[in-house]
């Protein structure tokens, strides 16, 4: 929702790092910095889009924020409260849930729809008897537009769009305030994708939900997000209001990304001037020194190779991590 800027953020992420230890052979390990020192806030009722190329750390960031991984470093503050310690984390798990990309693989084919949706209720002891459980499940199914007759069916009997509805009902079971949506419409055909996007918007309106919406389709993200954050090699490189970042991206990587989006309009597409990037994304195991983007940046100088630019506010509400953000724009 586009108002609501002044209140305390619902979620604060501070200097979050998520590193993975890779074992190659007996004694050698390598550290993969999947998320490397990211900080941002999300306001209540807001949708923050998170974009960037595959492998840049979006999913890891989402999981780390939800404490599905134990963060290597940094803090997650929810509703003013730092998330640490078993009891706090467990309470937080009810308030912060996740919808996954692939409705096919994230749902157990041997479970009925009713069991899939009811599982979080059971695990967290949220219902006291079978009748209440059933009522809650039917209510959740109704919220996501599933027919109550489907409760006893198996997820594999459903189309992709319906399975995603099941996944969303499950994510809603614990009455969360915040949902990480990890590529929730990427596997769906556009007509079904639109149904699900509208449903996300509707649920947000009705229930005051806050989303971190991860997707690689920039038009989808643009449609649904109030603000958009861009990641590159585990770092946040830009964060701004949707219109600002789409119409006038400031970071050289964001500029290249936006110019590469194929617009579904022949005249616009023909007139588009793409900013081509040289080379490929470096492996996160060999992240370059200095600015993570300098190996491909058309504006890089010697300084960029040496020092890492900080994410800082260059205009009101616009955060950019580029030494030359003001010069080149």
């Amino acid at each position, binding site marked *: 929702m586009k108002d609501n800027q002044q209140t305390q953020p619902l979620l604060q992420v501070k200097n979050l790092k998520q590193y993975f230890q890779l074992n190659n052979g007996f004694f050698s390990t390598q550290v993969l910095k999947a998320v490397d020192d990211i900080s941002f806030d999300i306001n209540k009722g807001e949708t923050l889009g998170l974009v960037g*190329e*595959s492998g840049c750390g979006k999913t890891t960031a989402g999981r780390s924020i939800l404490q599905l991984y134990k963060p290597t470093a940094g803090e997650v503050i929810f509703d003013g409260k730092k998330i640490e310690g078993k009891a706090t984390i467990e309470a937080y798990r009810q308030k912060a849930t996740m919808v996954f990309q692939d409705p096919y693989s994230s749902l157990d084919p041997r479970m009925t729809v009713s069991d899939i949706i009811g599982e979080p209720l059971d695990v967290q002891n949220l219902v006291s008897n079978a009748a209440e459980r059933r009522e809650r499940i039917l209510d959740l199914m109704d919220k996501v537009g599933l027919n109550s007759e489907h409760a006893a069916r198996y997820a594999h009997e459903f*189309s992709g*769009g*319906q399975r995603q509805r099941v996944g969303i009902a499950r994510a809603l079971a614990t009455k969360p305030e915040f949902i990480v949506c990890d590529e929730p419409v990427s596997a769906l*055909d*556009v*007509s*079904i*994708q*639109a*149904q699900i*996007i*509208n449903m996300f*918007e509707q649920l947000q309106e009705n229930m005051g939900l806050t989303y971190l919406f991860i997707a*690689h389709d*920039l*038009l*989808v993200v*643009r*449609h*649904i997000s109030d603000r958009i954050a861009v990641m590159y090699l585990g770092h946040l490189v830009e964060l701004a209001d*949707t*219109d600002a970042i*789409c119409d006038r991206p400031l970071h050289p990587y964001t500029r*290249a*990304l936006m*110019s*590469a*989006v*194929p*617009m*579904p*309009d*022949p*005249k*616009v*597409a*023909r007139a*588009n001037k*793409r900013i*081509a*990037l040289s080379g*490929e994304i470096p492996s996160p195991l060999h992240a370059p020194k200095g600015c993570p983007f300098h190996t491909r940046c058309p504006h890089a100088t010697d300084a960029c190779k040496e020092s890492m630019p900080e994410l800082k506010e260059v205009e009101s509400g616009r955060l950019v991590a580029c030494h030359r953000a003001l010069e080149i724009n």
Partner: protein
Amino acid sequence: MALLEVTDLHTSFFTDAGEVKAVNGVSFTLEKNKVLGIVGESGSGKSVTAYSIMQILAKAGKIVSGSVKLDGEELVGAPESVMNKIRGNRISIIFQDPMTSLNPTYTIGSQLMEAILLHTGRNRKEAWERAVEMLKLVNVNEPEKRMKQYPYEFSGGMRQRVMIAMALACEPDILIADEPTTALDVTIQAGILELMKDIQKKEGMAIIMITHDLGVVAQLCDEVIVMYAGGICEKGTADDIFYYPKHEYTKGLLSSIPTVDSEYEKLRPIAGTPIDLLNMPAGCPFAPRCENAMKVCIRQAAPLEKVSEGHMAACWMNQKKD
């Protein structure tokens, strides 16, 4: 004479559950130098149309009737020896996942050379040179060094470039690209699409671009076929399809995609669920999901008819007298 002429093509899969009419009366022509897009949701018959042209269908699949003519020569029913000369030589295909078409145990160079040796009269030295030249054409850096590397040493985008190089090595007249960039990131996709367009212009070949992404269609295609449930519901120039859609499914598709202007509006999705080919409705296959379906739509499928020069649609709405 058209370069490729497909007429009333019917391809079915004979499964335990019954006959799946995957392609159900498809007709179109493709001219030299043109890029033809085929769009439609998953399961609408895009790939099977392409595989039917190439005759590389899975075992259960069969061309039931119809004709595919290349430069006037009939391919349906042609012996395998004839098809072998056409595949890779005159018509090449690239797939969504290049890894499935590359052999992990051979170097990129040897696979490229094999394709060239198989389809052209070149000797090994010439084939090597041609392979290097092709890698240069698709913007692979240090091609001589890359020739000696294995597929796993290439990123997804690079592998797709190699597949394009391989598909183009024998200078085909037609390149069929089946969702070639669907698995790739946008910046890489943009590079591959530009590359295809450049090469197409340079070499004067025709491309059939199969995709579910209307952005890709808008960027690349001269003409577009929209498929639904194995049939063509609309075809026309890219401008016809995007600016003057004449089939309710095409209209629904366009209003389902987020655009720059839709940011503050709700999307208008198509209601219902995708069609089940084993339970096809009697009339227009889109009628069960169409908000404007009339009595006639439920009774009878509309024929694909001209709505303006070069623009055809199979929708009763176009014949409504008001």
